């Protein structure tokens, strides 16, 4: 419990520094921040109100404190693209991104873990080289290009799948599935590649350990060595990387979401950049950093459960 609290406290400076960065970022944009915040549609009365609300007549640190106070209470302002509160819009968008990313992640892990362990165990064999080359090849395919090709084949040529849009699972399960399958497959390609290389590297590392040699000398069957000794120990370093991958995956879906017209977080940010919707830009950045920090925190907390050696220290 104390460990959890310690870790939570340790992430506060990080969040503060990022919040200062996000705050300063908006001040760096040429022009009046209040005018930026209300967009092109506001009247001069709105402008005065927002100026007062943001405390623009106060010194910069006071402005930051006012802004941070609101952010902590969950008030990220109002989007001037959609006129909705930024936080609730973010949560709606996040739900879509999360679905696609998690499904892609699970599929990628199911392919990558067996492939990585196999390649690592048969290091330098033909099978290993084939797996590594395939992984490197997939790593080199831009996910947006894979997405385009999949649309070209399954959407326009074969006409099997819709090429654009999103249907919530609560409306129709089959429609939901049809709409997310291509985006999911495009993400799987890249994730699978990264994960396979990672799992392979940790497998090789574990195979060199004395306890594996000892188990083999003792006459433990290869299947048991793989399942009990190698897999278990090779997965724990991979889990730390999972947090990083998942975090970057959550934000890296911007291109995928744009191609497939998915109303997710990444596309929200890109649209906000086009529209110079600064409340949304600020809010999305902060939101993703918080999520990213939480994911890594969760990984840090799970890690000792997998690896008793870390628990002791």
């Amino acid at each position: 419990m104390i460990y959890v609290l310690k870790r939570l406290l340790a992430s506060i400076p990080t969040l503060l520094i990022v919040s200062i960065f996000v705050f300063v970022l908006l001040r760096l944009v040429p022009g009046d921040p209040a005018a930026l915040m209300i967009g092109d549609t506001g009247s001069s009365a709105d402008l005065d109100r927002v100026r007062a609300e943001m405390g623009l007549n106060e010194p910069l640190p006071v402005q930051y404190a006012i802004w941070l106070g609101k952010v902590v209470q969950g008030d990220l302002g109002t989007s001037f693209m959609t006129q909705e509160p930024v936080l609730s819009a973010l949560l709606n968008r996040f739900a879509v991104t999360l679905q696609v990313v998690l499904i892609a992640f699970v599929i990628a892990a199911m392919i990558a873990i067996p492939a990585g362990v196999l390649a690592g165990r048969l290091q330098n064999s033909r099978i290993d080289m084939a797996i590594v080359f395939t992984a490197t090849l997939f790593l080199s395919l831009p996910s947006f290009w894979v997405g385009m090709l999949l649309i070209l084949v399954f959407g326009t040529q074969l006409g099997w799948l819709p090429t654009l849009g999103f249907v919530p699972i609560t409306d129709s399960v089959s429609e939901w599935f049809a709409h997310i399958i291509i985006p999911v497959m495009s993400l799987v390609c890249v994730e699978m590649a990264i994960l396979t290389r990672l799992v392979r590297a940790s497998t090789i590392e574990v195979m060199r350990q004395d306890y594996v040699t000892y188990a083999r000398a003792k006459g433990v069957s290869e299947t048991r060595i793989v399942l009990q000794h190698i897999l278990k120990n090779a997965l724990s370093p991979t889990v730390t990387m999972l947090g990083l991958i998942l975090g970057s995956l959550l934000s890296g879906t911007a291109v995928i979401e744009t191609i497939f017209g998915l109303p997710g977080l990444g596309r929200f940010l890109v649209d906000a950049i086009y529209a110079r919707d600064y409340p949304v830009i600020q809010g999305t950045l902060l939101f993703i950093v918080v999520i990213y920090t939480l994911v890594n925190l969760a990984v840090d907390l799970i890690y000792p459960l997998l690896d008793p050696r870390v628990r002791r220290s």
Partner: protein
Amino acid sequence: MSLWTTVRSRRIYTISAFGLVIIAVAALIGVIYTPHDPLALNVDSRLAAPSWSHWFGTDQFGRDILSRMLIGAGVSLRVSLMTVALALSMGLILGALAGYFGGILDYIISGVVDAFLALPGILLALALIAVFGVGEMGVVVALGIAYTPNVARVVRGSVLSLRPLGYIEAARLLGHPHLFIIIRHIIPNVVGPLTVLASTFFAQALLSESALSFLGLGVPPPHPSWGGILAEGRVFMEDAPWLSIFPGLAIAFSLLCINLCGDALRDYFDPRNSDQ
């Protein structure tokens, strides 16, 4: 073992190194000569399929795709190289300062570096582009800043492990200035990890540049970039699939060569983890 021997040790490394040379030559050719004017509109040859006069076909304005891709190769390589150079130099300075001097300076630099590591690179780049605007320099600065924290952390780690070594202490006892010690004794020792890191970021920068240009946040039209050609061709994917295929192949081929060369570098600088 020399780097050349490592590259020669596996056929796949040799091929990828050769591939990189081809891409670089293509970019150079693009600077000197293109078969057609990459910006010239030609209404008579709109969306023409690949042929002898237009090897990779033409786009909706009748512009020659091969010519545009040759120019695009230069853009992609230039942006990626400048990004890596920017990230390496800033990261080297910050990491060396933090690791060498330690104390309060280390505390501040490491704090900021760790905070920025919590921001995924492409996200940080998007944020910076939102403020500084789109364009080739915008992409370089945004991606360069985004990759800097990683470099700084690696450099700081290496410097910390070098500091207590005898020859660094000896140099200090001899009265050499700090800057001299850093340049003469520290930097040569971080070249290995930095080169490996640089190859990773080179691939990432190329991918990010094409993704940003694809989103319309990178190199602005009508100037050709691989990502931009892909984005423009998206609408005509059904009638003119060559617009979506050739630039994508170019990106994938470049990334594959860079990634494989990166593996070769890793084998060379870190033989412990190599597969031999």
